């Protein structure tokens, strides 16, 4: 028997605040999290100086030497975001977490960057200086997932979903399927990204990073004619997924239901987006949800602000959902949070659906004529009520994901 899967907790750490009330205020005021990175000025070969770092956050006393020794920044972000989500779900300290019925699906582009330097030093010099018992634990790709497990005593299955920019969305999708097929009752799902120069340098090399260094608030510009690339962001977001009957029995607040997930690969190019594969993934999710395209009321776009990506996505969205489709991109506020964006955007899309207000794409002043016809939200955003929302994400290697969420209580 297939189970229904609902979201009963959401939380995160972002460039624009760490709870929906604060973030909503910043979205309404069209505040950007993008900053000029003074500390990057020494890296002469890199053109971009822009990033959207996470806003300062406090760690409670349970974050001590022993609980944090295996954590680099990305694991700290993952763990704290999860704690906020579990608290929101009313599940902090609940027996279900340690019972084996709760699992974790979590990812990031990679583990922490700092330990890589120690191993690089070793490879070059033969010296183990700087390598400790935890250096590898902080560097490994599933560092976030297993640090969450240790911190909260989670004993169910662990699904590392480190797939660059679909890490967070795959985590939610795989967690949804895990509960749907009865393998777990609760799943902690999300993604995180710590800020380091590496990813910015990668996009810089591909000429896909924005270099509007003297005007941080005006970039990235998803779908805009004058966009010049993406800005790397930092953050983490966790959703708590729960089997519907379990959530009902404990009287949990239900924020939304996950009704569809699609995941595919284009099998054709490492970095170039593929319109037909993107269209296909949206269709897969619609089929999974047993919905027609007409049912979808809003699309949260991946739209990072690159020339190729935005066009391919808009054409695919138009092909599947038609020109009437309201669409916006949150990356104009938070930058591209890579491993975190899938879960961060899922969280905020659900919050916007609950608020009946959808944020506009900031900096979208003149639509790129190559982008397909869609109902691009600009200005002050828009108030409207929808039954279903879709969130799309795409990653290097040609991975595509689509998630569909249903309003709860309607």
């Amino acid at each position, binding site marked *: 028997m297939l189970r229904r899967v609902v979201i009963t907790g959401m939380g995160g750490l972002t460039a624009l605040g760490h709870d929906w009330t604060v973030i909503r205020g910043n979205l309404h005021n069209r505040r950007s999290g993008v900053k000029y990175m003074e500390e990057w000025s020494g890296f002469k070969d890199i053109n971009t100086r822009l990033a959207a770092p996470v806003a300062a956050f406090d760690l409670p006393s349970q974050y*001590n*030497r*022993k609980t944090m*020794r295996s954590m680099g920044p990305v694991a700290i972000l993952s763990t704290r975001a999860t704690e906020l989500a579990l608290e929101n779900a009313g599940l902090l300290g609940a027996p279900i977490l340690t019972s084996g019925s709760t699992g974790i699906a979590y990812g990031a582009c990679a583990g922490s960057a700092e330990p890589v330097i120690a191993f690089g030093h070793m490879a070059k010099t033969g010296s*183990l*200086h700087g*390598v*400790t*018992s*935890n250096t590898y634990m902080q560097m490994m790709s599933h560092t976030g997932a297993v640090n969450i497990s240790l911190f909260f005593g989670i004993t169910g299955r662990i699904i590392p979903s480190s797939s660059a920019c679909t890490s967070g969305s795959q985590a939610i999708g795989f967690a949804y399927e895990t509960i749907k097929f009865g393998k777990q009752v609760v799943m902690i799902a999300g993604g995180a990204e710590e800020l380091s120069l590496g990813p910015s340098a990668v996009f810089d090399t591909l000429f896909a990073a924005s270099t509007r260094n003297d005007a941080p608030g005006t970039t990235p510009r998803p779908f805009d004619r004058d966009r010049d690339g993406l800005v790397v962001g930092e953050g983490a977001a966790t959703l708590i997924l729960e089997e519907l009957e379990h959530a009902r029995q404990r009287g949990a607040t239900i924020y939304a239901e996950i009704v569809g997930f699609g995941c595919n690969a284009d099998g054709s190019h490492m970095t170039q987006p593929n319109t037909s594969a993107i269209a296909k993934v949206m269709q897969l999710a619609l089929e999974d949800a047993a919905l027609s395209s007409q049912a979808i009321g809003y699309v949260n776009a991946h739209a990072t602000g690159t020339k190729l990506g935005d066009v391919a996505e808009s054409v695919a969205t138009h092909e599947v959902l038609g020109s009437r489709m309201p669409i916006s991109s949150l990356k104009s506020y938070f930058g591209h949070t890579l491993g975190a964006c899938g879960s961060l955007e899922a969280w905020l899309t659900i919050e916007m659906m609950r608020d009946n207000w959808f944020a506009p794409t900031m900096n979208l002043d003149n639509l790129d004529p190559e982008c397909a016809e869609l109902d691009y939200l600009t200005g002050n955003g828009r108030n409207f009520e929808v039954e279903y929302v879709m969130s799309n994400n795409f990653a290097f290697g040609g991975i595509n994901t689509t998630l569909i969420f249903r309003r709860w209580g309607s």
Partner: protein
Amino acid sequence: MDKQDIFKTLKDTLVEQFELDPAKITPEARLSEDLDLDSIDAVDLVLKLQEITGRKVSPEQFREVRTVGDVQTVIEQIMAVNK
């Protein structure tokens, strides 16, 4: 380095590396039961001692270590080897 210097260095290292209360660090203090250090911490302690002394600690030397005093004995041994 005499015995007292070694103990002081060891104590400072334990306090700094593992955020321990200096008053708890006595020669009799047991690493696991009294100071709440585990096998992962022991590895990092060995790495730190190697860094400070510039000498290699063999796994055999550290196997029987239970107390702060035992650690001191190991340091004295490795320091004496190349005296």
